[in-house]
């Protein structure tokens, strides 16, 4: 468990991007003289990931999360820096390295569109040098885990998005990779399909001790799968550590829902200097600092006639959403 399976030091990546102004003038100018800008999308990234860890990469669109995954799986070359994934230089794309990893992109598919998924599974099995009987065993096991036994012989184009995503996952896992790079794997899936996919990933991680690097804009993916998160803002890591520590650090407050016995009590409570988050007749939600919770609760119980009281954490989506745009966490 202690072995670092991914090690990245001073990793940077820049792209040349051409820009064009709208209109005929811009088009003609672009035709004769292309304006290109060199944009540094990753800046001095340092990270280590241990075998069996599930790490969530958080960041706004264009922050650089997907670029990191693409570099780690060997799809694109880094501009600067050192990296080792499972002991290999990813961009060399050595056969043994590629047999160790997989990349699943929510918006891209590798299954052959007009054929049933089974054909793609057998093709992938052959590509990864897995014999047919072993491939059959793995397909049976994975399709059972993913609950897609009935869809294996239906052309991919006739499958629903959720069924297709499960089939994509099976195709990507047939060679039992040790490292999974998942780029928004639940994109576009309904709530049940998202939950099933997360459950499957948890079981896969537990059974195989596979390392999972995940990006997702669905916070539920991150909170239910990842103990550790890496926040990225404009190509820099702004936080690397435990998710619960991050939540404590960036959200030192709690919401308290107080249900007063009368409207009068509610009125008085709302005027007593607390930060009011919400008010609905006899129900008032106040936000308080975590370190003053004992004192505040005592004060409320002693001063006001209350019917009930609930202490809640602010929604994770709200907290994470706030940090995605921060330079430092």
């Amino acid at each position, binding site marked *: 468990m202690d072995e670092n399976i991914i090690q990245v030091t001073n990793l940077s990546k820049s792209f040349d991007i051409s820009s064009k102004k709208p209109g005929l003038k811009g088009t003609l100018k672009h035709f004769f003289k292309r304006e290109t800008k060199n944009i540094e999308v990753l800046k001095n990234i340092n990270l280590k990931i241990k075998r069996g860890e599930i790490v969530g990469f958080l960041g706004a669109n264009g922050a650089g999360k997907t670029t990191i995954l693409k570099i780690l799986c060997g*799809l694109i070359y880094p501009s600067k820096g050192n990296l080792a994934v499972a002991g290999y230089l990813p961009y060399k794309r050595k056969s043994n390295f590629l*047999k160790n990893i997989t990349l699943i992109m929510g918006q891209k598919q590798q299954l052959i569109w007009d*054929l049933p998924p089974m*054909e793609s599974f057998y*093709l992938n099995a052959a590509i990864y040098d897995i014999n047919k009987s072993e491939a059959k065993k793995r397909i049976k096991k994975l399709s059972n885990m993913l609950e897609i036994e009935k869809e294996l012989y239906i052309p991919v184009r006739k499958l629903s998005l959720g069924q297709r995503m499960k089939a994509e996952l099976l195709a*990507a896992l047939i060679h039992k990779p040790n490292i999974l790079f998942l780029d928004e794997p639940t994109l576009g899936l309904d709530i049940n399909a998202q939950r099933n996919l997360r459950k499957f990933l948890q079981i896969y991680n537990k059974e195989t001790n596979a390392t999972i690097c995940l990006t997702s804009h669905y916070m539920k993916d991150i909170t239910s799968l990842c103990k550790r998160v890496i926040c990225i803002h404009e190509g820099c890591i702004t936080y690397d550590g435990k998710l619960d520590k991050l939540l404590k650090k960036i959200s030192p407050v709690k919401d308290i829902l107080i249900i007063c016995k009368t409207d009068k009590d509610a009125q008085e409570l709302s005027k007593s200097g607390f930060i009011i988050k919400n008010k609905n007749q006899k129900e008032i939600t106040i936000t308080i600092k975590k370190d003053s919770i004992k004192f505040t609760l005592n004060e409320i119980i002693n001063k006001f006639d209350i019917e009930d009281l609930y202490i809640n954490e602010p929604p994770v989506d709200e907290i994470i959403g706030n940090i995605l745009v921060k330079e430092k966490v």
Partner: protein
Amino acid sequence: MFNLNKNKLTTLLKVQYSNMLEYRVEIALWAISGIIPFFMLNIWTSNNLNESINLSNVMLSRYFLSAFFVRQFSVVWVVFTFEEDALLGKISPYLIQPLNPFFRYFAQHIAEQITRFPFAILIALIFFLLNPESIWIPSLGLFLLSCLSTFLSFLIQFLIQSIIACLCFWTEKASSIERLLFIPTLFLSGLLAPVISFPEYVKSWIYITPFPYLIDFPANLLSGNNTNLIAGFAMQIIWISVLFPIFKKTWSLGTKKYTAMGS
């Protein structure tokens, strides 16, 4: 770079053949659209142009039928598919598999040729019904040699297009470069006229290009016309030996430039 073995190749072919059978009507239409040589035969014979090159009507019709067959089994479109896949990021999942993605395209072409085969035979039968005097059965040796030269012709075209396809890592619209090659391929390959009909001074340099070995050489072999067997095969092998390392280098440099756009 090339981790191909028998199992991978046969599975690739089986899967791509199943895939191509899904498009059988489209492939039949492509086969029919390849009948340019028959139009050219009509132009040649109706204007008695064959007399100038000492080729009888029968031999000329056999040449153009052979040209049709060679074209059917050597047609290449990898540049268009690869360009689309690269620009939309579709090759990303294939790039991180232990098999060069070009083998997928290669298998697609072979599978398509197998699918085309019955349609090509049907067109040939219709041709023989209309021109019974052209019916001939080539010797087994010549038939096998012409099959080999057709395959080598396919390899040359596949390599040329693959090199151009790799350029889309830099230019994004590599297929427009391929279009530059369309005219010399059309005129110098023997699709519109046997290369023997060209003036001597033109022929002397045409024969050092790869074009006459794409259609003219295999078609002459199959139809039984006089052709320099050793020189033809030697030039096909030389061109493959020249193009293959260029492809390897372009691929290696191109994948370094790949940005996985659209994914």
